């Protein structure tokens, strides 16, 4: 697939949850297109429907209405908030989980997993158990587990929120590099504005529930590098403030 070709067209997605007590309109008229190789961040206050959008994309939830257009062969890889490593499996076995389930444990995929473990500094921990790893390393394992099935689009649901502040910056830098080096497109959901601006090519700002798109920012950083360095640029501060106002304004009007 050529770079920048549109690989995913989401149009007017609506999602209503039904519970015994009431119905919750979680997402309203959500539309956007994803280009190949693009890193899109979706920010919005917590509870506004961000996770719902990812769940719909990878088929865990069904949209109430709207359409998703994409190539039938487009594969998603979902990375959840907590690493969800299985404590009784070794690091290597954890990485193979998706392959086992999809019956893809062939030489090609196993070699790929081994390569990923080696490249991202986890080879010596192959036979260790998750409890012996730091939070940052566990998150890297979780990413490798997702990458192992060779998805085209990564869906990241607040992937760093379980980490403390310092590890968080380092791990987001790590994960960003891995995603770029493996040439993946990604949609990352977060409520951390700094994380979104420093990592993404495009930031979609959602309103409070039911989430509608408030704004979309093309993040144009002249001297774009890695997330930690991007945070030092003047553009970072500019976008940060714009988005903060988008979200902050809404909170005020809500109360």
């Amino acid at each position, binding site marked *: 697939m050529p770079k920048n070709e549109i690989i995913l067209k989401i149009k007017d997605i609506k999602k209503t949850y039904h519970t015994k007590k009431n119905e919750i309109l979680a997402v309203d008229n959500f539309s956007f297109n994803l280009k190949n190789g693009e890193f899109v961040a979706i920010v919005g206050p917590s509870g506004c429907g961000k996770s719902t959008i990812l769940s719909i994309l990878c088929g865990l939830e069904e949209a109430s209405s709207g359409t998703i257009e994409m190539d039938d062969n487009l594969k998603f890889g979902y990375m959840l908030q907590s690493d969800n490593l299985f404590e009784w499996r070794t690091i290597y076995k954890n990485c193979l989980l998706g392959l*086992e389930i999809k019956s893809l444990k062939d030489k090609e995929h196993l070699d790929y997993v081994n390569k990923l473990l080696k490249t991202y500094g986890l080879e010596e921990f192959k036979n260790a158990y998750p409890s012996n790893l730091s939070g940052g390393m566990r998150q890297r394992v979780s990413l490798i587990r997702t990458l192992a099935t060779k998805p085209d689009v990564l869906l990241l649901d607040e992937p760093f929120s379980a980490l403390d502040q310092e590890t968080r910056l380092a791990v987001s830098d790590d994960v960003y590099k891995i995603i770029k080096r493996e040439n993946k497109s990604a949609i990352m959901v977060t409520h951390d504005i700094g994380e979104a601006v420093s990592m993404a090519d495009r930031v979609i700002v959602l309103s409070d529930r039911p989430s509608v798109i408030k704004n979309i920012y093309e993040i144009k950083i002249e001297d774009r590098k890695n997330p930690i360095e991007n945070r030092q640029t003047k553009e970072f501060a500019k976008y940060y403030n714009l988005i903060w106002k988008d979200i902050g304004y809404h909170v005020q009007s809500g109360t």
Partner: protein
Amino acid sequence: MYSLEHKKFLKKIKTTSILVHTVQIVIIVAIIAVWQIAADNEWINTFIYSSPRAILGTIGDLYQDGTLFHHIGVTFYEVILSFILGTIIGVVTASILWRFKFLSRVVDPYLTILNSLPKVSLGPVIIIIAGAGVKSIILMALFISVIVTVINVHQAFISTDSNKIKLLESFKATKSQIFFKLIWPSNFRNMVSTFKVNLGLVFIGVIMGEFLVSKAGVGYLIMYGSQVFNLNLVMTGIIILAIMASLMYYLIVFFEHKYQK
């Protein structure tokens, strides 16, 4: 190399643990000694309360006429068989209930009622159905243990981390893949504690069954002893049960250590 302070700390732990064991042994020796002295001096009625020496004598007699290990063997066999059957039936039923939510909602009140029903009351019914033999004893033990196993194991299954289930679903896992890759292995460790409870219940069930119908076994020994007013035999039976129970307890603890590594 450990620091001096750490060595002191380790030594203190060791001393305490030796002390605990010593006190435990002193207590049991004291009980036996006081019991024997009270019997020798006729402070207690030895016809009812027996005495350590008389119990030892009875055990010796049973050993000599070859029935000691026969009775223990029969009870042990019944316990192990019911334990294995009960565990398998319980775990399989719990798995089916996990798989079929609708069914689990349907049977929920029945399980609750059966669980709180005193199972001894089923004794006469069981005898009529299964006859006065080993079958009835095992059925009794199963009635007592299976319901609790089903409830405990099912509860453990449904409280499995929902995020891990979501992760598997994102890989498009089937129900049976979710079961064998996640539900089963993640609960296997906790299952040992269920087994512990289960073994205790099965033991109760077997002895209860032996009271009702048997022709052999430690429960039979106790029942027979009480019928012929041989309270030495009754006490002996109780002591043998205590020894069997503690042996089985340590057996489970042994497996626990082995598999929780």
